């Protein structure tokens, strides 16, 4: 109990001492909170989107076969489907029809796709992003300019669900005939080929067999797709490197400012405390509480604000960055998949260095003779 009371007294004194330099310390806490907020927001967003991508893209085709001509993706001939079907271990093979359509009125890129179970001619289903960018609604007409310059008139028979916007915002699901009419693709070709295999452990072997059979193809296995989103918001990406470097430099300035020595006023304060009977350990304890008060308060505030930012406001501050130059941007709310280990890492990288940097110079000042410190 006595120990607790002593700590409380020291904390009372520390807080009064901090409040004497109110402006400086409040500014410090605001900057500190902002640094933690930005780092935690990036961390929360990256973790949530990676996890979400890994869950929903698990249903992607096991292997996608693209045909390459002179290093560029070309249409795959129907004959390739028959050839791939004969490879042992392949369960089913089908051709995919999809492509991009630039809509000059909205200034947006749409993805046209033919669903496997077919769609009625002249009718389409569209993602919510398309309805927003075209200011259209169900039952409206959407005309697409074909490769000949003629208009292909399509009726919007339905919209894809809002929940699926993260994968479907820019999709137009159309019939095979309309798709081929818009892009002028003959029936002998598909955009690429997808296949399912009996045993997923054979994926690499089957991909190699496809490459051997058709050397002008490039098989992409599902793991490649899943790995693509692992690197999203990776610290090595340009923008993140800039944010991390900024935050890192801010911390170095904090630590430098603290570690390079105490101000004359602070030294005098330590001298007086020693002169009136404080032990060196008490001074260090006071500085420990000072470092903790600033860093822990800022850390907690930063983490809480970051959570609200990412999971309640749909990462509003990141939207301009994610949106880039796109006209069409999906509306989505991320699921809060939190990695506790990352939060702990952020805690150890922010709170501990600051607290240590506060204690070390005070320990040096507290161990010299109070008389010489006060002079």
């Amino acid at each position: 109990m006595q120990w607790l009371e002593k700590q409380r007294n020291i904390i009372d004194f520390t807080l009064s001492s901090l409040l004497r330099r109110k402006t400086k310390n409040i500014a410090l806490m605001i900057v500190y909170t902002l640094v933690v907020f930005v780092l935690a927001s990036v961390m929360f967003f990256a973790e949530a989107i990676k996890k979400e991508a890994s869950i929903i893209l698990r249903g992607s085709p096991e292997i996608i076969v693209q045909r390459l001509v002179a290093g560029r993706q070309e249409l795959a001939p129907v004959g390739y489907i028959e050839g791939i079907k004969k490879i042992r271990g392949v369960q089913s093979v089908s051709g995919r029809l999809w492509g991009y359509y630039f809509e000059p009125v909205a200034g947006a890129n749409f993805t046209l796709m033919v669903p496997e179970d077919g769609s009625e001619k002249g009718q389409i289903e569209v993602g919510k992003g398309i309805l927003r960018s075209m200011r259209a609604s169900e039952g409206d007409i959407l005309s697409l300019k074909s490769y000949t310059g003629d208009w292909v008139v399509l009726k919007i028979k339905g919209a894809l669900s809002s929940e699926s916007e993260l994968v479907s915002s820019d999709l137009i699901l159309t019939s095979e005939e309309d798709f081929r009419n818009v892009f002028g693709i003959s029936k002998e070709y598909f955009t690429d080929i997808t296949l399912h295999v009996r045993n997923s452990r054979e994926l690499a072997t089957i991909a190699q067999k496809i490459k051997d059979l058709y050397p002008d193809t490039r098989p992409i296995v599902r793991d490649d797709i899943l790995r693509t989103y692992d690197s999203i918001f990776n610290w090595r990406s340009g923008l993140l490197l800039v944010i991390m470097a900024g935050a890192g430099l801010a911390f170095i300035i904090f630590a430098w400012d603290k570690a390079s020595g105490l101000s004359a006023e602070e030294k005098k304060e330590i001298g007086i405390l020693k002169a009136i009977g404080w032990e060196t350990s008490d001074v260090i304890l006071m500085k420990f509480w000072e470092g903790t008060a600033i860093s822990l308060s800022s850390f907690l505030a930063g983490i809480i604000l970051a959570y609200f930012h990412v999971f309640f406001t749909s990462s509003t501050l990141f939207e301009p960055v994610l949106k880039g130059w796109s006209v069409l941007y999906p509306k989505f709310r991320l699921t809060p998949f939190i990695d506790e280990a990352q939060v702990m890492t952020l805690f150890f990288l922010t709170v501990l260095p600051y607290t240590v940097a506060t204690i070390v110079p005070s320990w040096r000042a507290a161990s010299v003779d109070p008389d010489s410190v006060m002079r």
Partner: protein
Amino acid sequence: MEPMRKSSIYFIYLAVNLALLFLLSIHALVAVKDAVYGLDLKAEMVKKLELTDLCLFTEARYTRHLSQTDFNTPFQDHPMSFEHFPSGSIVEPPARLRMKGDRL
């Protein structure tokens, strides 16, 4: 009335923050549980339509389907067109393209 001690105010601040953190972690747990239906719906759509990518970056053809991209697409819009779309700062090229000895 005696004014509240500064340490008490500080401990109340910490307690409120910790309580908020606790509530947020409960929120995260509940939200993850609630999201199962939505995630299943998206996964089902991905399977049915054979989709390969998230619709995050629609600014360029090659940023829309990141996993399907190749070495040439970022440079095909203009002879001097190095990677200049903002999303290029957020994602790296697919691991497949970064592997040594597996160029195309």
